[in-house]
């Protein structure tokens, strides 16, 4: 432990050590990527900063992505770390306009982890793969000493074939409509409530789901789709800011269009959280050229994972790089990315 020196008032640096904020999907996470990873690993694929990398192999265009899963608790209402590890990766492929095909599956397990829990997770992975129509084709398992990993960590890497070209943040332009496939905040609240410490009780279940189904509906609807992005850690605010920044456009969203389930609202009110910052695992945004939005919404609504789809905003040439919210009372304010870990507040 560092020596306690109460008389030294020098400002400290938050970046000397990795903190939970670096994994929360907000500004510190983005800085880790832009200031450490990209400069060291520079290449044309990485610099696009999209959910997956798209490249050619022979006559095919493939999409390739990876994701790691560390969720606690590992079992939560509506899913578990296993189903999440399938959905997370297939969804990143879907956001590239790619049909997910195959996954690799890698476990890092802490000594002492219950075999029954592992079996339950594997069964869940199996079910999720069937649902998503993908196969686990290769894998790896490591076991570490007690205390070196928190139960279990999973990494999945996925490959898919690109069936729709040109889906990327760089294709977004002014006039595009922003369509959301359903109500937000479910996953983050379900997980937060399932953790010890807050003692909340709710029937909120994670929205974790494979999204190629509804994505394909949008892509086949006849609307011109410029970009797709799923809203995971950091919530809607993160995704919208990332796109505004990557595409150098302004984004305007309307508070009264964004569906938030009552129990999620209740939990957010109690904890002092904003639903725009809460994680989702089955929600994505479609950026659709003007004129095609109705077709896209109708197509989404024909799928079980898009029943509540609606337009929530539009892309503009004003306030480029910023996301602006029109509030319920008619005011306007800028929506920033989360500045770190999402903490409940009492004040």
């Amino acid at each position: 432990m560092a020596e306690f020196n109460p008389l030294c008032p020098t400002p400290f640096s938050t970046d000397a050590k990795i903190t939970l904020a670096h994994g929360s999907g907000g500004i510190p996470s983005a800085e880790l990527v832009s200031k450490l990873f990209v400069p060291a690993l520079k290449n044309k694929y990485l610099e696009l900063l999209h959910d997956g990398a798209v490249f050619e192999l022979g006559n095919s265009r493939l999409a390739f992505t990876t994701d790691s899963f560390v969720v606690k608790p590992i079992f939560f209402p509506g899913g578990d770390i296993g189903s999440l590890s399938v959905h997370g990766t297939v969804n990143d492929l879907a956001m590239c306009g790619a049909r997910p095909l195959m996954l690799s599956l890698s476990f890092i397990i802490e000594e002492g982890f219950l075999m029954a829990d592992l079996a339950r997770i594997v069964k869940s992975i199996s079910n999720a793969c069937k649902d998503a129509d993908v196969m686990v084709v290769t894998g790896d398992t490591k076991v570490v000493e007690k205390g070196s990993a928190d139960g279990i960590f999973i990494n999945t890497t996925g490959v898919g074939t690109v069936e729709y070209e040109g889906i990327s943040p760089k294709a977004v332009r002014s006039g595009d409509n922003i369509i959301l496939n359903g109500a937000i905040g479910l996953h983050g609240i379900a997980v937060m409530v399932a953790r010890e410490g807050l003692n909340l009780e709710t029937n909120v279940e994670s929205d974790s789901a494979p999204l190629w189904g509804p994505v394909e509906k949008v892509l086949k609807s006849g609307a011109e789709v410029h970009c797709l992005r799923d809203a995971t850690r950091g919530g809607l605010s993160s995704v919208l800011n990332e796109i505004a920044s990557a595409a150098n456009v302004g984004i305007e969203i309307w508070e009264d269009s964004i569906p938030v389930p009552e129990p999620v609202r209740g939990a957010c009110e109690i904890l002092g959280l904003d639903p725009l910052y809460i994680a989702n695992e089955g929600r994505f945004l479609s950026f659709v050229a003007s004129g095609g939005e109705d077709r896209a919404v109708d197509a989404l609504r024909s799928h079980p994972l898009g029943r509540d789809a609606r337009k929530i905003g539009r892309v503009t040439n004003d306030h480029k790089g910023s996301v602006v919210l029109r509030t319920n009372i008619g005011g306007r304010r800028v929506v920033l990315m989360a500045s770190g870990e999402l903490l409940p507040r009492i004040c």
Partner: protein
Amino acid sequence: MCLGVPGKVVKIEDNALGLRMGVVDFGGTKRETCLAYLDDVQEGDWVLVHIGFAISKIDEEKAKDAFDTLKEIGL
């Protein structure tokens, strides 16, 4: 300061610590809440909760004050 959230009392019982406790429903999310600071609260009442404690019972009549005033001034 002081996030206070209105919720509906759905259950009342004394807990293991000997405190009057209740379950309060906030739009479908429920929390165990200490009712010890309200001397007359029934199931079905609406209360204002701060950090797990009900600090007041919502007065349904006074809840309309802001709207009544608008009517009085003809707006």
